[in-house]
């Protein structure tokens, strides 16, 4: 007597396995879609822009004539901007992370700070632009300067840096801290001499990734009124400037077709800028990351 109809089971099972295989292919295709878009995007930009990447492109200032348009002011401006954003955001971010991870006890104030940081991460960048426009550009009268834009960008990426630094500090095992206390070190000595040195690769990796977001961010710069055609280089923190994404935005808006190619070239420069920053981050992560 047979309790199981073997043929029926095989038939049913085969059907289910085929459905499984079909869906596997669908899921794989969906994943490929993202990669395909990325491929098309890069192909378009490289094929359009590479012809415009001449030495003159890096030596010229912005211009209304596509052939004479260059990226010098924007490139230098972006570097100036980073020189403000990097120290300000890293000091504020790491300080906050140390406080939250090492000192903060569980009370209402600290819970509020934590909740506040996660909320801040969800605020659209254009709203940060409104903050910068009101506080830094107008109230503090910094104008549309490197400093005003730098402060705005620093606040924008602050939550990202804090979260990254918190994770890096949390990854330092408790034993090392205990050992340091056992040697008679105080809390601050332990943090400065033990915790931070081993957390620094993680902190820097997160910070560089956050900074590369600041390099490509456009909306806050538009809102605080950064000019697009600038025929001089910034010489101090209060001078006017323009930045790579602003320049690209301006070119992309222009109706002449030739400017499409100029924008592609500008995007290429921006992407290379980002690529260099990300490579540094990966290099730091691989080279200095300590494993316990």
């Amino acid at each position: 007597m047979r309790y199981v109809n073997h043929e029926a089971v095989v038939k049913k099972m085969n059907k289910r396995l085929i459905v499984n295989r079909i869906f596997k292919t669908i899921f794989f295709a969906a994943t490929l879609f993202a990669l395909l878009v990325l491929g098309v995007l890069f192909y378009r930009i490289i094929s359009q822009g590479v012809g415009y990447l001449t030495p003159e492109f890096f030596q010229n200032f912005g211009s209304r004539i596509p052939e004479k348009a260059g990226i010098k002011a924007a490139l230098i401006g972006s570097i100036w901007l980073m020189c403000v954003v990097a120290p300000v955001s890293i000091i504020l971010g790491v300080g906050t992370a140390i406080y939250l991870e090492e000192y903060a006890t569980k009370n209402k104030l600290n819970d509020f700070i934590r909740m506040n940081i996660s909320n801040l991460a969800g605020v659209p960048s254009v709203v940060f632009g409104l903050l910068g426009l009101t506080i830094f550009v107008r109230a503090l009268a910094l104008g549309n300067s490197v400093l005003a834009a730098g402060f705005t960008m620093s606040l924008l990426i602050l939550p990202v840096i804090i979260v990254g630094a918190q994770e890096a500090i949390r990854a330092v095992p408790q034993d090392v801290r205990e050992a340091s206390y056992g040697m008679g070190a105080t809390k601050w000595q332990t943090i400065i001499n033990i915790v931070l040195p081993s957390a620094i690769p993680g902190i820097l990796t997160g910070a560089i990734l956050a900074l590369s977001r600041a390099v490509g961010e456009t909306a806050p710069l538009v809102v605080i009124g950064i000019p697009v055609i600038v025929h001089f280089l910034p010489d101090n923190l209060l001078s006017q400037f323009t930045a790579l994404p602003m320049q690209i935005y301006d070119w992309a808006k222009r109706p002449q077709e030739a400017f499409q190619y100029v924008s592609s070239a500008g995007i290429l420069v921006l992407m290379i800028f980002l690529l260099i920053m990300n490579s540094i981050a990966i290099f730091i992560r691989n080279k200095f990351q300590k494993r316990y």
Partner: protein
Amino acid sequence: MLLISCVMVKGGFTVGQKHSAQKLSVQELIQKSSGKKKKKLIEKMIPIILLLIASVSVLTTFGIVGTLIVETVIFFKEVKVTEFIFGTEWFPFANTEQLFGILPLIAGTLKVTAIAVVVAVPFGIASAIFLSEYASDKSRRIIKPILEVLAGVPTIVYGFFALTFVTPLLQQFIPDLKIFNALSPGIVVGVMILPMIASLSEDAMSSVPNSIREGALAMGSTKLEVALKVVLPAALSGIMASIVLAVSRAIGETMIVSLAGGSTPKFDFNVTESIQTMTAYIVQVSSGDAGYGTTIYYSIYAVGFTLFLFTLLMNYLAHVISKKYREEY
């Protein structure tokens, strides 16, 4: 007596020499204890300084909410609140009578967001299922960094891509499509938020314990059945939260819609014509020369405040979903 004292001094001297190292350390101890006050002061000051640094982020929030409210209140002195919330026409640049009804801007934002969700959710969740349930370690190691790159592409680049590639491509299929429309930026915003949905959902699925999967497999389920009937329901709260967060990102997205969406706010459901979103309006006004102190100048704060409330609501919703419906194993 003199001799004895001499010997004693001598003895003392030799003893001193012998134990000079020890004596020094005692001196050090004394120095240390005198420096201890300074050290104690540092130990006391550091948490206060760090707390001050940490309060910058709180101040930022207060700054944002404060400026938005203050400037919005000024705006509402000139425009009625009811007209702003319920008005279906937005003509701030009209010469005769300016109209500030925000519904057309909200409609623009929602059109783009809806299209983005339609694109991003199926592709995002399918990628997440593939990465978490089917992919080998090797292909995961290749695909995940590429998704990260996709997430790291600046939005201005996506905007350029939407305007110069996606729109002309769509125009071949939809001849009526205008140069500025909701469809093309919607699709591209979808691509932009796709990695976010994929990686957050994948995290949620990966945190479903393997024992449950193996249980289902042992009962004779195929991988698909495990994924759809076991893993997906278990990870649902995380997946929903990721979608809500992505929606919040889409609502706040600025450069893609500024470049490819146009600047004619309309209160309808047409996606082939030029639109304007809340974010794009803020950009339009601030990149033009709307004089400081005009009604148009204050209107960007009112729009910004509305935008802020929308994203705040979404983020709160995501928080509630992931906290309330999380399944603990």
